[in-house]
Structure formats: structure tokens, C-alpha cells
């Protein structure tokens, strides 16, 4: 059933994004030609600049639209009239909330991949590609496992962010009036609360993890010294996972027990 919910969710969002992605790729192809046609004409460089500018704007717009759409889809399909269908389907509330979170992550990641593809297309043959690889090597992400860890942190970060928004919408929905305002207030309060808690929690946990687990145990058993950034990423991964679990639980609980559609 989770798969069916995801299919239904993705169908409703992809119809907006596929045309935008196609437009981004077309603009990048045009851009790669204009950047590479180096005949010294001012008009050409102006045109190249404009297309490049349009491409950047489009990527930013698509990212913002993606986040807005994630929020709007959750709001309209769960707590507005569409909720009358969603909550009478023979599925559990936890599956509904999970499907919203997963489809949001997939959508935002797909946008990021399209943006990266656009950048690669634009840079083909122009020397930027070589420059990119120099920068890449300089940053030195380490081995594949480390890179995967970073990507995982990013995914869990997006997932917990979406679930935080879902939790705020659900909190706002508990009231019969000013639902959007209460949801916004909940978002601000939760953000402030976590910004106070973060240094305390992360500081303590980070010291423990980086000293006792990674730098000592790992390096002894595997014979290599783990980069301290791996330790930090692991801590962040755990922290975001806990946040995701809290927000997911709050959303599911409220929608399960306190659902009150207009």
C-alpha cells in the first residue's frame, strides 16, 4: 500500500516538474553552445550570459517550487477536502505520512540531480569540467563510503525538514481557527527550541562519538585513522534521524487521534 500511495503522490507532483526539468536541460544545452562559441562577439557573450542567468534562475525557482509543492500537497491532500479521500483509503496513517516524506525527498533529490546535470552539460568542453575536477580533488571527500555518508546525511536532513513542516501543519490543524498562523508559530517555536538545544546535544554527543568511537575503536580495529569530518557527519546523521523520528511520530499521532477535517 505504501508503494501505491507513493505512486499516487509522485504522479501528482511529477506532472508539474517534468516540463520544468525538460526546460532546464534544453536551456543548459543551448547554454553549453553559447559559452563554447568563442568568436569574440559582444552580442554572443551577452546572449550566453542571459541564457546562463536564466538557467540559474530556473534552477532556483524549481527548488523553491519543489519545497512549496511538498508543503502544499501535504496540506491539501491531508487536511483539506482531499483528506476525505486520503483518510478513507484502506491504509494506515503512518503509511500516508511516510509516503509524503519519501516522495518529498525523491522530488527534492530529483531536482538536485537535474541541477547537477544542467551544470555538467553547460560545462562540457569549456574547461569548467576540468576546473570542477580540480576543485573536487582539492576538497577530497575521501573514499566512496564517506561520500555516501554525506549523501545519506543530506537525505535524512531533507526528510526531517519535511517531517518538521508536516508536524507544524498537523499542530495548526488541531485548532479550528487560524490554522495556518498556528502552524507558522509552531514552526518558529520548534526552530528556536532546537537552536537552543543543538549546541548542548551535539556538543556532548560529538565529543563522545569522535573520541570514544571513531578515533579510537575504528582506527585500532581497521588500521586507519578516520577523518574527524566522518565523525561529525555520523553525529549529524544520528541527530537528524532522531529529529525525523520525533516529527514523524508527532504528525502521525495528531492525524491519527485528533483528525478533524473541516
Amino acid at each position, binding site marked *: 500500500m505504501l508503494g501505491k500511495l507513493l505512486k499516487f503522490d509522485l504522479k501528482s507532483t511529477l506532472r508539474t516538474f517534468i516540463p520544468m526539468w525538460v526546460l532546464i536541460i534544453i536551456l543548459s544545452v543551448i547554454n553549453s553552445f553559447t559559452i563554447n562559441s568563442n568568436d569574440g562577439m559582444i552580442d554572443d557573450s551577452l546572449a550566453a550570459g542571459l541564457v546562463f542567468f536564466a538557467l540559474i534562475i530556473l534552477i532556483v525557482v524549481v527548488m523553491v517550487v519543489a519545497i512549496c509543492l511538498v508543503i502544499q500537497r501535504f496540506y491539501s491532500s491531508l487536511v483539506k477536502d*482531499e483528506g476525505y479521500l486520503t483518510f*478513507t483509503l484502506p491504509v494506515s496513517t503512518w503509511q500516508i505520512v511516510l509516503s509524503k516524506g519519501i516522495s518529498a525527498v525523491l522530488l527534492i533529490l530529483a531536482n538536485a540531480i537535474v541541477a547537477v546535470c544542467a551544470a555538467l552539460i553547460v560545462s562540457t568542453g569549456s574547461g569548467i569540467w576540468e576546473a570542477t575536477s580540480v576543485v573536487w580533488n582539492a576538497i577530497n571527500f575521501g573514499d566512496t563510503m564517506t561520500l555516501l555518508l554525506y549523501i545519506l546525511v543530506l537525505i535524512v536532513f531533507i526528510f526531517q525538514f519535511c517531517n518538521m513542516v508536516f508536524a507544524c501543519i498537523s499542530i495548526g490543524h488541531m485548532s479550528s481557527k487560524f490554522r495556518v498562523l498556528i502552524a507558522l508559530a509552531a514552526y518558529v517555536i520548534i526552530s528556536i527550541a532546537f537552536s537552543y538545544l543543538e549546541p548542548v546535544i551535539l556538543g556532548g554527543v560529538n565529543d563522545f562519538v569522535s573520541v570514544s568511537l571513531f578515533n579510537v575503536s575504528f582506527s585500532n580495529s581497521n588500521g586507519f585513522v578516520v577523518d574527524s569530518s566522518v565523525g561529525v557527519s555520523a553525529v549529524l546523521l544520528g541527530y537528524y534521524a532522531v529529529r525525523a523520528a520525533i516529527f514523524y511520530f508527532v504528525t502521525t499521532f495528531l492525524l491519527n487521534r485528533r483528525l478533524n477535517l473541516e
Partner: protein
Amino acid sequence: MEEYMANQNLIACKGLSKTYGGTVALNAIDLSIGKGKIVGLLGPNGSGKTTLIKIICGLLSASEGEVYIDGNEPGRYTKSVISYLPDRNYFADWMKISDMFAVFKDFYKDFDIEKARAMCASLGISEKQRIKSMSKGTKEKAQLILVMSRKSKLYLLDEPIAGVDPAARDFILDTILRNYNEEGTVLISTHLITDIERVLDEAIFLQNGNIVMHDSVDNIRASRGKGIDELFREIFRAQPYEGGDYNAR
């Protein structure tokens, strides 16, 4: 005994209450409805009809009391055997009817897509038409087609004939009568009694969250010597302002 009650009846409510803030919408109602019936849930606006239906279909949690549908508390199983028509349009604007067919086919094993297509064709509704471009009446008919194309144990129809013209009312009632699963029960909530009296087996009268009467239509006619519509007007007659006699005017 309670378990027996829950299993024998399609719907069994015990001490079911719902309060919104300080307002009592349902007041400790006990109710049992059997299988294979068409039951009218009758009462004026604000009597608790929609609240009761929402609790049965799992959209609302009761404040107190218990409810069993086919022996189960509201949940995934009960949602799979209930076909619910809400009092509003739940389509997403971007969808076409064919998209809704796909959703119903995916989620409900008892959805008969061929039947739904035939009903659309007989009404001249195109499956490729966007919901956005449909009139209010067409949307209501499309939703009814989806709901009645399932072979469910329980059909919960919340105000299916409110807000449509008399010709459309006849169409809706005929659709319900011709298409419901005969082993299933249909619970129709309405305050438009005249139109549905002819199809009912049982009537439940709700007033201020209390059940004031629940009996078979034949019994009501025999014992009271009057029809449901007449009885409804008698029970729910509004008290005129300053004690004036409404009937004398």
C-alpha cells in the same frame, strides 16, 4: 455478549459520544444496524448526522464509547469494506475521471471499473475530462459513480441529494438503488425526507446528538399511522418565536 452484538450487526455503537470543545455533537448513543438494509439517518442540520458518519468511516475519533463495523473498530479493514460518499467534493483539480478510476482500482479490491465506465458512458461523462472543467453537479455524479461501483459491505452516503435539482435527485436515488451490493447496507443521511422515504427499510431520527427513534419504516407507519416525512415534521417542528402557534397561521 458485546462481542456477539458486534459480530451480528454490521454497525454496533455503544455509548458513542463526540464533543467539540464544549459542544456535544453525539450524546452517548447506542445503535445497531443489520446487514442488507437501506437505512435513513434523518435529522435537521446540526443534529449529529455527519459526525456519526465520520466516526463510522474513521475520519473522526469518538470522545467516548465504542463503534464496531463488521465486528472491527474503525481502521484499515473497516475502510476497505466501507464505501463513503462525503458531503463535499474530494477530487484534486488536476485529475481526470480516469485518474480517479486508477486510484480506486489500486486501493479497493471491490472496485468494478467496468461498471464505473458503463455508468460514465450512460451519463455522457467523458473519462478524459478534467475535474476542474466539470460543473458541481457533474462532480457529484462522478463521485457517486465511484462510490457505487464498489461492491461494499457498507455504503455511507452523507447528504447525497442535498444541493441538486429534483431530476438529479431521482437519478442519484436510482443509481443507489440499482447499484448497491444487495448483501450490503446503505446508510443515507439527509434532511430531505420526501425524496428518499420510498427507498428506506429503516429510519433513525437524530436530534441534538441523541437518537429519538430507530425503527423499520413499516413499523413506524403501522404504529404511528403516518409516513416518515410527516413524523419528521412533527418531531423536528421548530418552536415559533414568542410562543405563537405556527399551525394556526
